[in-house]
Structure formats: structure tokens, C-alpha cells
């Protein structure tokens, strides 16, 4: 059983998806999906534990040897990302039942399909992360993308449909680019296994084909992870999707895309080829900086809080890419730990916002007036998430920003460090706008708002408290991230 953990990690959510479709809407289907999600989380914890204790795990699907069969390969990096995805998946589905029942545009008879799509999306994200086969990445990418288009399109706002459609177009282009990239690699090397690819690419590295594959992969992956200026699909998709879906996707989908970027450019192409021969950092660094700055400023001017947080996500992705383009252990540690920390903070923020719109009916800023007094617990969680987003000490967000600044200073790039600090101030502004309206503006006359139900509050607060906990005890989010960073750069044990 223990030996098959890598396979179970994907199979349990995969099998639960059709099961959900068969169950009637209501409590039963929710319980099934939740059980599967928490099982997946348990498996992710066990995997991470084993990887940290015994080193990377290689699992051969169906016993077929590499390079003919598909290998699942778990090391410190993807065990960590698996943990993030599975944890958020489990917490969000626990949170989701009431929202699914009342706040999405599906008749009650069809609500089971929501859980099917959700579990498929989770399957896809876990699969991308765990597999050691490049083509398999594409397959799971399509599974997760297609199901996420469905999930976005069932938002109550009718604009959710166009948002999902645009995401569909852009996501498909991204996936196609990735597929083209993988295909070109296959043409040159004759293999799809990542380990094999890494071993064979150096021999043919200096060819136009490999360069073209590199370019397609760069753009394809950056589209999926919404790097500025390829982020344009993201704000609407996040803003108009149901809040459950937004919380889930914001905390996981882009993280997995960043994982893919790390995997392709550090493991398969190798850091030396990617950053010294191809100088990938010269593409990433300016886009990351412009993205951080521009998206933060846009967030300040937004009226729709959900859309504001979506733009803030674009900025936060910029921080992660910035850390990667430092190409140092500290920089990568910052990026990888920010995957985790950002999942915590955005998860908490979008869930708190979900609580607000559950009671108020919208995520518009002006509708949130006085909510701080009527929904104190919800807004408490929002404020904690916001502090973490700003990077206030003693929160998780501070930890990754600290390493990012240290990494920039190590390289002597102090203007970058200054910019990171300035953009943190921009985050203060947009978080403060919400706090000001929620706490200092009187509620509109006649509006009766109650605190969100406990079923929503408990998962939200679990993530909010995690933001505080991991701001103090950094052995997981920084310790594992550092090990992963050392592994990627080949300097670690």
C-alpha cells in the first residue's frame, strides 16, 4: 500500500470524480468529494514525509520500465507542491458546500457535476505535479484546464461565461505551445521521460530545434502561470468564478504552473543551459518587475474586491518569477516558499471574501461598508490574510518576502530590493481600502447582515491561522523550500 502511494495520489481523486457524478446532489456527494480530497492530502503528507526521510521516490506505472513506461517521480520540490495543492483542495471543498448549494448558477439536480469537475481539476493538478513524464504533464494539464473552464463558467455573474471562454482560448494556446515544445524535444531526443530528457538534451542543445522548443515552452508555461503581459485572462476568470473555485484555483493552479516552469527549466534543460546559454532571466526579470508594479497599481484602483485580489495575484506571481530569475539558492527558496505562503494567504482572502459575498451578495467594495462590525470573524480572517499579503512580520508573507529581499541584496541588486519594498506599500494601500470601507464606513440603512455560518468560518480561519503559524515556525515552508532549491541548483546534498 505504502509503495503505491504515488499512484494513489492521483487515482483516488480521479476515481472519485465519476463517483460524484453518480451520487445525488446534497450532503452525500459533498462527503464523497471531501473524503477523497482529505485522503489525497493525507497521501501528500505521507509522501513528503518519506521524501524528506529517504530521498526521491520513483514509481513505475504498471511496472513498465523507464523510458517506455510512465514514471512518477517525487522529490522534495514536487512533494512540497503536492502538499500545497492537496491541502488547499481539501480545505476549500470542506468550505464549499453551502456556497455550491446557494451561490452557483446550476439547478440543484446538476450540482453533483460541480464536484465531478472539481475532483477532475484536483486530479489534473496533482497529476501534473507528480509525473516524471513530459507528455503526461500535457495530458494532466488538459484535464485540469478543461475542468477549470467548466468550474469558472458556472459563476452567478453572466460575465463568467465570457471569462471562461477567454481562459479556454488562452489556456488552449498555452497548452498547445507546451505540447509543441515537448514534441520538438521528443523529435530531438526520442524520449519523453524527464530524467532521460535531461540526460540527452546537452548533446543536441545547440540546435535551432531545441531553441525553438525552449521558446515555445517559455511562452506556453508563462501563459498558464499568468506572467505579465500574458495575464489578461486571469482577472476576469478569478473575479466571476464562484468564490469556491476562485479560492481553489488562485491558490493552486498558478502554483502548479510555476512548478512546471521550475521542472522544465531547472531539471530538464538544466540551470546552466536555461540561464547562462539562453539567458532566460533576461526575459523573466523585466516582465516580473513590470508585472509586480503594474498589477499592484491596478489593484489599488479596483472596485471589485475579487478582481482586486486577482490583480494582486498577478503581482504575487511576479514575486515568484523574480525569485526564480535571481537564480540563487536564496532566490529560489523565496519563490518556492512563496508558492506555499501565497496559497495560504490568497486561500484565506478569497475564502473570507466568499463568506462576505455569501451574506452580502456581492464582492463589490461599496457593498462591504460596515461589514467589519456585522461580520467580525470573517473580516478578522480577511485582515490576517491581508497582513500576510503585505508581508507584515510574524505572518507567512513576511518570510518569503524577506528571503526575496535578501536574495536580491546577495546579488547586489538593491534597486530590485527597494522595488519589492515599495510594492509592499502598494499592497498596504489596496488592503487598507477594504479595511477602511469594512470597518469605518457605516453600513447602509436597512441592510441586515449576519456573521457567516460556522461551516464557512472554520476552514477560513484554519487558513488564516496557518498564515500566522507559518510566519513563526518556518521549518516547513522555508526548510523544505531550501532543500528543493538546493536540489534544483545541484548544490544540495
Amino acid at each position: 500500500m505504502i509503495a503505491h502511494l504515488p499512484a494513489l495520489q492521483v487515482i483516488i481523486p480521479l476515481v472519485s470524480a465519476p463517483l460524484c457524478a453518480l451520487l445525488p446532489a446534497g450532503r452525500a456527494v459533498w462527503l464523497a468529494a471531501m473524503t477523497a480530497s482529505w485522503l489525497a492530502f493525507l497521501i501528500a503528507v505521507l509522501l513528503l514525509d518519506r521524501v524528506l526521510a529517504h530521498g526521491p521516490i520513483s514509481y513505475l506505472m504498471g511496472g513498465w520500465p523507464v523510458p517506455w513506461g510512465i514514471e512518477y517521480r517525487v522529490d522534495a520540490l514536487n512533494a512540497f507542491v503536492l502538499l500545497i495543492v492537496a491541502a488547499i483542495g481539501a480545505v476549500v471543498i470542506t468550505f464549499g458546500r453551502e456556497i455550491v448549494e446557494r451561490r452557483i448558477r446550476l439547478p440543484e439536480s446538476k450540482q453533483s457535476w460541480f464536484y465531478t469537475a472539481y475532483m477532475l481539476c484536483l486530479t489534473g493538478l496533482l497529476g501534473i505535479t507528480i509525473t516524471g513524464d513530459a507528455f503526461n504533464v500535457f495530458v494532466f494539464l488538459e484535464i485540469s484546464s478543461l475542468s477549470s473552464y467548466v468550474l469558472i463558467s458556472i459563476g452567478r455573474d453572466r460575465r463568467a461565461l465570457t471569462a471562461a471562454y477567454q481562459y479556454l482560448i488562452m489556456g488552449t494556446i498555452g497548452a498547445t505551445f507546451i505540447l509543441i515544445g515537448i514534441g520538438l524535444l521528443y523529435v530531438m531526443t526520442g524520449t519523453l521521460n524527464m530524467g532521460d530528457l535531461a540526460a540527452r538534451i546537452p548533446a543536441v542543445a545547440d540546435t535551432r530545434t531545441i531553441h525553438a522548443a525552449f521558446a515555445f515552452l517559455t511562452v506556453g508555461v508563462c501563459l498558464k502561470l499568468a506572467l505579465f503581459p500574458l495575464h489578461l485572462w486571469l482577472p476576469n476568470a478569478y473575479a466571476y468564478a464562484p468564490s469556491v473555485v476562485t479560492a481553489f484555483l488562485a491558490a493552486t493552479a498558478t502554483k502548479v504552473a510555476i512548478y512546471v516552469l521550475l521542472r522544465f527549466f531547472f531539471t530538464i534543460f538544466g540551470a546552466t543551459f536555461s540561464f547562462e546559454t539562453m539567458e532566460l532571466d533576461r526575459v523573466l526579470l523585466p516582465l516580473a518587475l513590470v508585472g509586480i508594479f503594474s498589477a499592484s497599481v491596478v489593484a489599488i484602483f479596483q472596485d471589485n474586491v475579487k478582481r482586486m485580489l486577482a490583480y494582486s495575484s498577478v503581482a504575487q506571481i511576479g514575486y515568484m518569477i523574480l525569485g526564480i530569475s535571481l537564480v540563487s539558492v536564496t532566490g529560489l527558496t523565496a519563490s518556492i516558499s512563496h508558492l506555499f505562503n501565497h496559497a495560504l494567504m490568497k486561500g484565506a482572502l478569497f475564502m473570507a471574501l466568499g463568506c462576505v459575498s455569501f451574506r452580502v451578495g456581492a464582492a463589490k467594495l461599496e457593498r462591504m461598508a460596515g461589514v467589519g462590525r456585522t461580520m467580525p470573524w470573517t473580516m478578522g480572517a480577511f485582515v490576517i490574510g491581508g497582513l500576510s499579503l503585505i508581508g507584515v512580520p510574524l505572518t507567512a508573507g513576511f518570510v518569503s518576502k524577506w528571503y526575496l529581499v535578501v536574495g536580491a541584496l546577495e546579488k547586489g541588486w538593491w534597486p530590485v530590493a527597494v522595488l519589492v519594498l515599495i510594492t509592499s506599500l502598494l499592497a498596504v494601500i489596496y488592503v487598507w481600502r477594504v479595511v477602511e470601507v469594512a470597518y469605518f464606513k457605516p453600513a447602509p440603512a436597512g441592510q441586515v447582515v449576519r456573521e457567516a455560518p460556522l461551516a464557512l468560518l472554520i476552514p477560513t480561519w484554519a487558513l488564516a491561522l496557518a498564515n500566522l503559524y507559518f510566519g513563526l515556525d518556518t521549518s516547513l515552508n522555508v526548510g523544505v523550500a531550501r532543500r528543493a532549491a538546493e536540489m534544483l541548483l545541484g548544490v544540495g546534498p
Partner: protein
Amino acid sequence: MIDGLNPALVLVCGSLLALLIPQGLLRSGFLLALPALSLIQLLGLPDGQYAQIELFRLTLTTLRLDGLSFAFALVFHLAALLAVIYAWNLRDPVQQVAGLLYPGAALGAVLAGDLVTLFICWELAAVSSVFLIWARRTERAYRAGLRYLVVQVGSGVLLLAGIIVHIQATGSAAFEHLGLDSPGATLILVAFGIKAAFPLLHNWLQDAYPEATVTGTVVLSAFTTKMAIYALARGFAGTEMLIAIGTLMAMFPIFFAVIENDLRRVLAYSMNNQLGFMVVGIGIGTPLALDGAVAHAFADILFKALLFMSMGAVLLRAGTVNGSQLGGLYKSMPLTTVFCIVGAASISAFPLFSAFVTKSLILEAAAQEGHWVAFLFLLFASAGVFHHAGIKIPYFAFFAHDSGIRCREAPNHMLIAMGIAAALCIGIGVFPDALYAILPYPVAFDPYTTTHVIAQLQLLTWSALAFSVLVRTGIYPPELRSVNLDFDWFYRRLLPAASTRVWTLALRGWEAFNAGVTRRVEALIAVLSRHHGPHGLLAATWPSGSMVLWAVLLLGVCLVFYYL
């Protein structure tokens, strides 16, 4: 006795708890029990390091007991007990709490084994002590308290900066010998120096202490400066520079003390002078000298408390402590007079009184190490002490010309406190070995040799003679209602006057600059909002085609970039 409990916590927590107890005998009794309990706790703890906590990879030793810290902790308890007895009938909750919170903080500082705890106690002492000044509830006291607070917190900030530099460079927070060469030591030394009232850093003392309440001054005189003396002895023992500083400290206040009218301010100056002796001892740094500094701090706390208590009693009964308005009080307050004379004899180092057996340790050490200049100056300063504190205080308060004030004797609890302090002063003078036994280093010194006693008596006799001649011939500066200018004139009068002009100009410039910046920022926000606002280019929903265009464009750029 509770194992490993910090006695300072008993005082700090207890003083706050006291607020819950109804005002009256019950509360006074509780306040008295606190230092007694804390003292029992202190005596029950063997030497060692306790309550170590790990914080941010630093090991903090919040309680360290060794010879040096024990001597200070013991005398701090005595002083706290005396102050509580002295304030037995006081019904002001502010003074009651501050009167034990502040000693608790100072106690925490001398028991701290690491710099972080030291800093926390350092600041707590600063903040809690200012209430003893504000408790007088006059405008003058309020302003003096503010000035005091600024200086004290400034010392704390310097200390913090120095500590940060030190921990960054060495990775250790332990509070051991620092020396001038260790990183951050200069900042730390200045921070200590402010609290120890080094020359030119001293004005807060003469400024604030005489403005505090009757009890407040007694409490204040015991802790802040001695805490700094402890810190210097711990961190900077044997730093040559301190000999010169200490000598200067012992010398200059004499002249100010001679012409000062407010008798409590005279005592504040004399405090400075006594601290000078201790700083010299620390600067010499030999075991004998350090013992001398610690012993003198011990004795000084007691006799200075006694003197301040007697002046407090005078202030309470006669309503003033201005030398020009007092005189002849010995008829009304005979016991207070006796106690004051005991204190005066102690500070003047009469044989059989406390300072005689402690100060001579320092002088002996200076002679042994060949610091003759310092030795001679200290000798002169000893004569000066007798002059301004030993004779002047009792003479002008209780004798001199009869001012006609007829008041009652000090209340009983004050007399008891003064009596205990006087007994301790004499006790130390008569049985010096009891004090020598608790000093950090073993002492093999006998103050009562014939030459020593005779030399001291000669010094005192000549000093007394000089005073008598000067007073008789009318040359002695009369007690006038006057304001004497000290160094603080420069920063309290000259600097503000000069800066007002500069300030006006700067303000005008700033306003113009501000207006310009505001205009620019508004313009910038307008531009940003045009592009980033909800309907701006960067925030708008784009047609799918444009999105794809960007993707293709980036792919093209990447291809070209990688191919080249």
C-alpha cells in the same frame, strides 16, 4: 522560595496587583511584603544562571546571579524596603505602583544575563520612573518629567542600537565584559553614560530629581544611576577612559553644589560627585577597585536615600527646601536633624561611617595602580563633599540663622525609615567586614589603620575650618534665590533660540516644497489612474484576439532572442 523565579518579577507583577487591593493599611502592608518576599527569593537562590529562553536563535539568560549582581540586587532590595516604609502613609496609587515597578525593573536589569533582557528592563525603568516625577502634579514637574523621559528613552534607543550591532557582529546576546573594542560598544557606553550621568550628559539628573515628589526623589536616587554603574562595572571594567571621566565627574559638581540653593538639587549634584568615585573605580578595574566601586554604590544608595529622606521630611513639614528660606529647624525636628547629620557624616566619609570604609577602597586602588593625578583629585573631591554635602545640608537646613519656621517633627514612619537607614550607615562603618563579605572579589583591606584615620580626620578638619572661616568672613556664597546655569543652558536656551530662526526659514521652504510635491503626486496619480484605473487600459477586459496577439508577440520576441 520558588526555584528559578526572578525576584524582579515579584516586584513588577506584585506592584501591578497592588492596585486590586483596597487603599489603606492592607495595601501598605502588601507593598511592604513585596520587596520582603522578593528579598527572600533572592537570598534563597544559589549563584548561577536561570530562566534561559531561546528567541530567534539567541539564548537569553533572564536571571544571572553572581557576586556582582548579588551585591546590587541586595542593596536595591534594602532601598525598596526603605522607600516603602518611608511612604507608608502615602495614598497615591501612581506613586505606589511606580515606586515598586521601577525598582523591579532596575532589579531585573542588574539580574539580566543577556543584553536583550537588559534593554527591556532599561526601558521599563525609564518609563516607570517618570511617573514619580509627574506624580507631583505641577506644571513644572510635568515639563521636567518630559525632559527626563526624552533623555532616558534616548539612552534606551542608543542601547538598543548598540545591542543590535553587537549581536549582529558576534551572534551572542550574553552580557559579559564588552570593552571598547567590541562592536557596538561605543553606542552602549554612551547609553550607560547617560544613565550614569557622565559629565555633559548629566543635566537630566539635577533637572528632574529635585522636581519629583517627596518619596519619588528617594526612590529615584537609588536605582537609575546605580543600575548604570552596575552595567559599566559588568561591561567596561578596566576601561582607562573611565578614570578621566570619573575624576571629572567627581570634581565639577562641587562648584555647582556650593552655589545651589535648592537643597535637594545640592544633593543631586553631590550624587554626581559620588558616582564619579565609582566610575573611577570601574576605570581602574583591578579587583580591589571594582570592589570599591560596588561597595561605594552600596553605601551611597543608603546614605543618599537617608539624606533625600531627611530633605523630603523637611519639604513635607516646612514646605520648602531652599537654603535661603530654611534654618533653625533643629528645634522643631530634632530627630530628623540627627539622622541628617548621620547621613552627612556618612557621605563625608567620617571614620565609623559608611563611606569611609568604601571610598578608601577606591582611593587605595588608585594609589596602588599609580594613578596619582586621579588620586589627588579624588582627595580634593572628598574634601569638597564634606563641604557641600556634609556641612552645607545640615547647616543651612537645621542651623544657620533661625528662619522662624516652627513645624512638627517628621511622621513616625519616615523617622523609622530614616532610623533604619542611619543604622545601616553606621553599621557598615563600624563593621566593614560584613559588607566586604558580599563583594564580588575577596577583600584583604583594613580601613582602620592609624595613618588612614588620621589622614581622613585632617582632611575633614581643614575642610570644616575652611567652611567656618568662609562663613564667618562672609565670603561664602550666600544662599540666594537664583538659577544657576549648567551645561543644559546650551540645549535648553541657546539652541532653541538659534533654531527658531532657522526653523521659520526651513518651514517656509518645506511648505513650498510640499506644495510642489503634492502637485506632482496628484499628477502622477491621475496618470496612473488613466492607465490602471478600473476603465484604464491595463485593467480593462481585453478582446481575446488582443490577448492572443500578446502571446504571439512574446513568442516571436523569445524566438528572436534565443536564436541570436
